[in-house]
């Protein structure tokens, strides 16, 4: 398509988008006047029905757990696609040298970066597990905690170097953790079927609201999601870091 034809088409669609946007926004409830009723019902029922303090977790991992399972597999598919796209021998060897930029030779890490990352990595991993395990009580949960745990693996890379990073966090471990998370989620759902309930129905004992062991299957699913997100993030960081290594001699282009 010519540049002119492209511009004309963009303007025609821009008018359409502007009309839809204006119509859509003018139909929204005023800011600060949430009309309900679905969210209000959840807010009133979840603390009693599910014995959790965090209504958001109750939506994600109980009332709409099936939707979250779908989101989970979107994440799984995205990470799998990324691993497929960035496959190849590059960076596979733990001694692979970094890719030399034209006029910027790689510098060794400073002691400050090394020790700061070392200190923060441990604290961040602890905080990540706290986030994952308290999703049914306080703001947080498997998605947030998993992202923190996955990011902590980058601090391991910053604190040490590529070879230590690859040795201490092998990609097979990331893959295993990611798949285990996805599997536990589905197994929790199937376990409910064995109990005579519906798929992903919360059949575990609900406990007392505010206690660590409460909410039935919600903390279990939270943990599974945490594992999957942490493994997925760690895996995609490892794949991107491989791309910063030098090309293997004879590596096929692309």
């Amino acid at each position, binding site marked *: 398509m010519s540049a002119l034809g492209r511009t004309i088409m963009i303007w025609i669609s821009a008018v359409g988008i502007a009309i839809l*946007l204006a119509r859509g926004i003018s139909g929204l409830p005023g800011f600060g006047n*949430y009309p309900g009723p679905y969210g209000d019902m959840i807010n009133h029922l979840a603390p009693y029905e599910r014995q959790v303090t965090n209504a958001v977790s109750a939506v994600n991992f109980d009332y709409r757990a099936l939707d979250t399972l779908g989101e989970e597999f979107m994440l799984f598919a995205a990470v799998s696609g990324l691993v497929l796209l*960035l496959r190849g021998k590059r960076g596979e060897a733990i001694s692979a040298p970094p890719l030399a930029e034209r006029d910027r030779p790689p510098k060794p890490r400073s002691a400050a970066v090394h020790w700061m990352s070392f200190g923060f990595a441990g604290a961040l991993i602890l905080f990540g597990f706290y986030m994952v395990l308290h999703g049914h009580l306080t703001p947080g949960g498997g998605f947030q905690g998993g992202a923190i745990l996955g990011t902590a693996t980058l601090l391991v890379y910053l604190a040490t170097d590529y070879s230590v990073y690859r040795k201490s966090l092998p990609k097979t471990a990331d893959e295993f953790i990611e798949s285990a998370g996805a599997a536990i989620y589905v197994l929790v759902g199937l376990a409910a079927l064995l109990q005579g309930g519906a798929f992903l129905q919360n059949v575990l004992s609900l406990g007392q609201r505010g206690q660590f062991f409460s909410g039935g299957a919600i903390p279990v699913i939270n943990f599974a999601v945490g594992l999957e997100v942490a493994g997925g993030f760690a895996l995609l960081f490892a794949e991107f870091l491989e791309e910063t290594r030098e090309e293997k001699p004879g590596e096929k282009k692309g």
Partner: protein
Amino acid sequence: MNFVPYAVAAWLFIVGLYAIVTSRDLIQIIVCLGVMQSSTYLIILSVGYRTGASAPIFVQSEAPPGTPAVDPVGHALVLTDIVVGATVMALLLALAIQVHKRRGTLDPHKLRPMHD
């Protein structure tokens, strides 16, 4: 002041769309897709907001169940999508890496179909 959150969301959407349409760089396009995505988060959270209400966390001592709270469904949608969206964006960036490896360019105008 009631319209400000919606105006910001519309602005983010328009700015992101404009940049995607005019951009000559795949990385920039991917980042702008993220900008457009955040406009949807803002809309969902704004619709579910209630003036003076608390977060949908009900701790007996501070906000016992029954305290007015904002919509938890929107929060649930947004928090899952932020994390899933990050991995989808990583997938797009991996596509950009492959395009650059094969064609040596990130300019979408220089990419022609079936031309090796």
